[in-house]
Every structure is written in C-alpha cells, then in structure tokens.
C-alpha cells in the first residue's frame, strides 16, 4: 500500500522535485545548455585556427578556451547527459516506481549545476577562467603558473560537479541492483540498464579519486609542495588518469546501450547475443576500461608499459563482441529507417574510426610518435563527439516520445543527421594528417607548414556541426509547440518503459506486464498475436 502527496506546481517542481524523471529532465536541460556554451568555445577556437596569424583571440584567451571547452564537454555535458538518460530510463526499464535514494539524486543534480556555474563564473574574474587544460595538470595549475581566482573556481567547480555526478550514478546503480520488479532477474535486465550498470560500476572508485585530487590541488595552490619535485607532476597525472580513462567509457557505454535498444526496436528483433553483450560490454569492457589509465603516460617512462599496452589492446576484444552483437541484431531484421536508427548506424561507423585510431595511443611504439599531436585530438573527438554524441541523439530521438508524449520531426532529424555527419568528418578527419605533419595540440597560432588548408576545412566543418545543432533546436521547438502525439508504445520497443503512458505518471506504472525475458514487451506482443 502506498500513499502519494499531490503533485507540486511546475515552478516548484523544477527546483525541488524528487521524482527521478523530473531530476533527469533538468539534468538533461542543463547539460544541453552547457553544450551550447562549450560549442561556442569550440567555434572560437576553430575560427582562430582557420588561417595562420588570424589572432581572433589572444593567446591567453585561447588557453582559457581550450581548457574550458574540454572541461565543459567532459564534466558538464557528456557525463551528465549519459547519467540523465540512466536516471530517467533505468527505473522505468527495471519496473521500479522510483529511483533509489531520490533525495541523494536531487542533491546530486544541484551540486552538479552549482559546480558548473562556479566553474564558468571564472570567465567573470580578472585573470579569466581556468587555463591549465581540462586535466588541470600540475605544475601548470599551481598558483605561480596560473594565478588568479579563475583556476580556483575551476577546481571547486570540477569537485562539486563530479561529486554530484557520482551521487546520481550511485542512485542509478542501486536502483538497477535493488529495485527491480518481480520477475526482473539480473539476466532479464534490458541492455541499456546493463550498460548503465557498467558505467556506474566504474564510477564507484574512479570519481572519488578526482574529487580527492581536486581537494589536494586546491590545498597545493594555497600551501604548496604536494605536486612539486621530479615525481610530483607524475603523481598528479597517475591519479588524474585513474579517473580520466574510466570517464571516457562513462561517456560511451550508456550510448552503446541506447543504440542497442534502438537497433532492437527498429529491427523488430531481440538484441542478438544478449549474454555476450552483458558479459563483454557491461562487465569485461568496464573492467578493462578501469585498467588502462597508464597508456596516457607511456611517454613519461613511469608506468608499466607492457601491462597497459596489453589491457589497452584487450579492449579490442570486448569492443568487437559489442559490434558483433549490434550488427547481428540488425541482420535480417525488419528495418524501419527512422532517425533514431540512422543516428545509431552512424554512431557505429563513426565510433569505429575513433576506436581504430585508438590503436595509435594504445601501442607504446606508435604513441611515442602520436603523443601530444593532433592525431590524439582527432582520436578522442571521433570517440566522444562522432561516437557518443551521435549515440546520444539516437537515444534522444528514440525516447523523446516517452519523455514528452510527442514525436520529434523525422524530416528535421534527417537533415540534422546529414549536416552533422558531413560537418563532423570535415572537422575531425583533417586532424589525423595535421598530427602526422607535426601540428601539436593547444597552439593558438602557427606558421603555414602545409597545415592551412586542412585547418580551414576543419573550421568550415565545425560551423556545419553548429548548423546541425541549430536544426536540432528548431526541431525541439517545433515538436513541442505543434505536438504530434505519441502513444505509450509508438516504436513497439522491447523493454518495460513502453508499458506505461507517455510521459509516465509519477509512480511510473499502473500495471506491469509479466517479465519472462529481457524483452518483456516483445513477449507480450507475441503472446497477444
């Protein structure tokens, strides 16, 4: 038996509601807002680099821009976006009436938001915001090298935002492990929920390391000497990358899970190789991802090179199984070429480039050549933008009807996809030959070493990406203003979120169908036909 209080007014709801769906919507909205800010910073950088000697911004401002662009996208956009999907969908997918520890999730939201605001408020300080790279690397981030309050605001912002994200992650993990509906055994959880479990398992120990590291860095700037000497900066890097590599997969796994759901729904088939998917992606992949941080430090000569090369290459096995499962799901399926499916397919193709270019940095021999060059910039943008962001859009187009009760426009979605696909490859593909020709990261200006044409192409591409994002915003506006109503199960999806109304009621479900597999809605439709 349960009693419920009346729902609050929308304004109050937007601030203090503990409903997981409301918290997730706000998390999604704030991450999209930060995404626009981070995108503007990227455009300014690409404009600066379009031609040698442009000097659109000063060198100091450029340092601030690449630091804040990276920090915004990692700490304030892709990680919270992934968590927002999990916070909204996992309770629905496991048949729970609410998230575990809803107050903790609400506290996490506000810690994240305030952390983000504090980080960005560095722009208002005299010396400007943090400018010691997105990893805040010591000794560059020490007081004498990066003076001013902006760097301190950056540290406090990263600390608070990461703490908030960690709290939300633990709520999602606990919900999946402890709040499942009757019949929802571990091996009946949907693929997306399993990828969220893999994501949050990595967060258990990786995120607290960053939180402590930021506190230590703050102390170091005030009182000195924690990261001094020959070993100090290496100690900082070792601790940072212990967080910094798992977080790459925190920003990737949820979107693999979203794409798995999309492929299943739009091919009319259950996920192919479910057990392998769970074992490889959610568990083995996550364990390996936590064991590869040292490959970021190959050139330091301080890490166990052979071990980290082995684990980094081991990821190929888990990633291969994931690709095999996803393609196997589409194989001989009754494909419906909706925007969500198209984004999912492009996600697979783009991430493949990101993954294969990762071999350059996983192999010590190759990494010694690629280190600190634009090859690395191209690689991680193919994984995090060309990969994760396309996967995120697959999830957004797929679940938008569930969140709002309205469809996004398919035509505008396809236009956005086409523009972003061209723009993304124009922006990031030239970075590989640029790196090969010797262009290093984080430079505000360059003499023309044959780099100009490639940089100009990349800059044009970045403006195309911005145009694609603009099309998405227009789509969002049009779809919410002139609603095309979606029913509870518009895509004939496989998992439990499609068993309730769109949007779901505060208690999530009035009635739950029996759960006898990881695709209970498909079971129910087959039984009815």
């Amino acid at each position: 038996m349960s009693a419920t209080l009346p729902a609050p007014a929308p304004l109050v709801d937007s601030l203090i509601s503990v409903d997981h769906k409301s918290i997730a919507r706000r998390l999604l909205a704030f991450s999209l807002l930060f995404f626009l800010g981070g995108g503007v910073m990227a455009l300014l950088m690409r404009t600066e680099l379009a031609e040698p000697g442009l000097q659109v911004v000063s060198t100091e401002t450029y340092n601030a821009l690449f630091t804040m662009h990276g920090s915004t996208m990692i700490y304030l956009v892709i990680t919270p976006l992934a968590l927002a999907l999990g916070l909204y969908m996992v309770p629905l997918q496991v048949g729970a009436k609410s998230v575990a520890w809803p107050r903790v999730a609400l506290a996490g939201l506000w810690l994240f938001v305030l952390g983000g605001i504090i980080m960005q408020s560095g722009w208002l300080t005299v010396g400007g915001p943090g400018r010691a790279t997105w990893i805040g690397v010591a000794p560059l981030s020490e007081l004498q090298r990066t003076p001013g309050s902006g760097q301190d605001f950056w540290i406090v912002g990263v600390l608070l935002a990461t703490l908030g994200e960690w709290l939300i992650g633990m709520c999602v993990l606990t919900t999946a492990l402890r709040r499942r509906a009757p019949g929802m055994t571990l091996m009946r959880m949907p693929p997306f929920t399993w990828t969220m479990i893999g994501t949050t398992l990595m967060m258990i120990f990786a995120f607290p390391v960053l939180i402590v590291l930021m506190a230590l860095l703050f102390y170091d700037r005030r009182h000195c000497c924690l990261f001094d000497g020959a070993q100090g900066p290496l100690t900082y890097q070792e601790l940072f990358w212990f967080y910094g590599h798992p977080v790459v997969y925190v920003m990737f796994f949820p979107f693999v899970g979203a794409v798995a759901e999309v492929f299943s729904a739009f091919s009319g088939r259950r996920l192919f190789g479910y057990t392998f998917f769970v074992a490889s992606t959610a568990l083995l992949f996550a364990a390996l991802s936590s064991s590869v941080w040292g490959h970021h430090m190959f050139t330091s000569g301080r890490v166990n090179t052979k071990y980290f090369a082995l684990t980094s290459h081991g990821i190929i096995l888990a990633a291969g199984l994931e690709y095999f499962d996803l393609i196997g799901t589409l194989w001989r399926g009754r494909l419906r070429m909706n925007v969500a499916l198209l984004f999912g397919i492009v996600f697979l193709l783009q991430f493949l480039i990101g993954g294969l270019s990762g071999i350059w940095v996983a192999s010590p021999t190759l990494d010694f050549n690629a280190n600190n060059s634009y090859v690395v910039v191209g690689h991680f943008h193919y994984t995090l933008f060309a990969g994760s962001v396309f996967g995120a859009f697959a999830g957004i187009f797929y679940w938008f009807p569930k969140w709002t009760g309205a469809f996004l426009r398919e035509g505008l979605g396809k236009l956005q996809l086409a523009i972003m696909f061209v723009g993304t490859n124009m922006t990031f593909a030239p970075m590989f030959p640029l790196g090969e020709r010797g262009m290093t990261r984080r430079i505000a200006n360059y003499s023309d070493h044959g780099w100009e044409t490639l940089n100009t192409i990349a800059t044009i591409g970045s403006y195309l990406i911005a145009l694609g994002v603009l099309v998405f915003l227009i789509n969002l506006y049009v779809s919410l203003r002139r609603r095309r109503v979606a029913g509870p199960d518009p895509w004939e999806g496989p998992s439990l979120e499609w068993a309730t109304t769109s949007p779901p009621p505060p208690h999530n479900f009035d009635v739950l169908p029996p759960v006898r597999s990881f695709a209970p809605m498909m079971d129910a439709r087959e039984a009815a036909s």
Partner: protein
Amino acid sequence: MRRGWIVLAGWGALIVASAAVQVIFSPRAVELAMLGGSGAIVIAAGLAALISERRRRPRGMREREVLRWTSASTVALAVGISLFVLGWEVGAWCLGIGAGLAAVGLFGVVREVRAERS
C-alpha cells in the same frame, strides 16, 4: 532475493584479477595497489549489499512508504555544501553561510526521512 551483490562482488573480482595480471610484468607497487585496492573496495561493497539484502524487511512492510514529491531541505543541503566548498576560495563569510545552510538542510532531510518511516 535481488542478488545485486553478485554484480558488485563479481565485478570487483574482475578488477582484482586484472590487477593481478600486472604481477607478470614486474609491477609498480602504486599501480598494483590502486587497481587491486579499488577491486577490493568493490568486493567489500558487494559483501555489504549481501548482508543488507539478507536483513531486508518483508516486501509488504517496505511498500508502506509515502512518496514525497518535493524536498526543499535536500536542495538547501546541496546549496549549503556548494557554498561551503566555494568558501575555501572566497572567504569565511561564504563558508559560514554554507555551513549554516547545510546544517538547516540536513536537519530538514532527517525530519523528512523520520516522518516517512513513522
């Protein structure tokens, strides 16, 4: 039975196994300790979840809970913590306001939780 502890303990064991592979390659103590220790923490979390699952109250009793829609106290707590941490940078006044607000928020959250359990 939820059996969530299996996921935690199993994944922790995977991490420990991955750390153990370092032994083949003349490991550095700090890397072995970081990864192995993290795995051990996750295994411990799994064991804690197992104990918690065994001590759970019967389902019928657990469902007699009130679903609250809002928690202003939680937001006060989060804002208080944020101001407190920001106070390290901007000064004691912010630290004091943050501590006070966090205390008020914490008191409110405790009251809310007690009210739901009674």
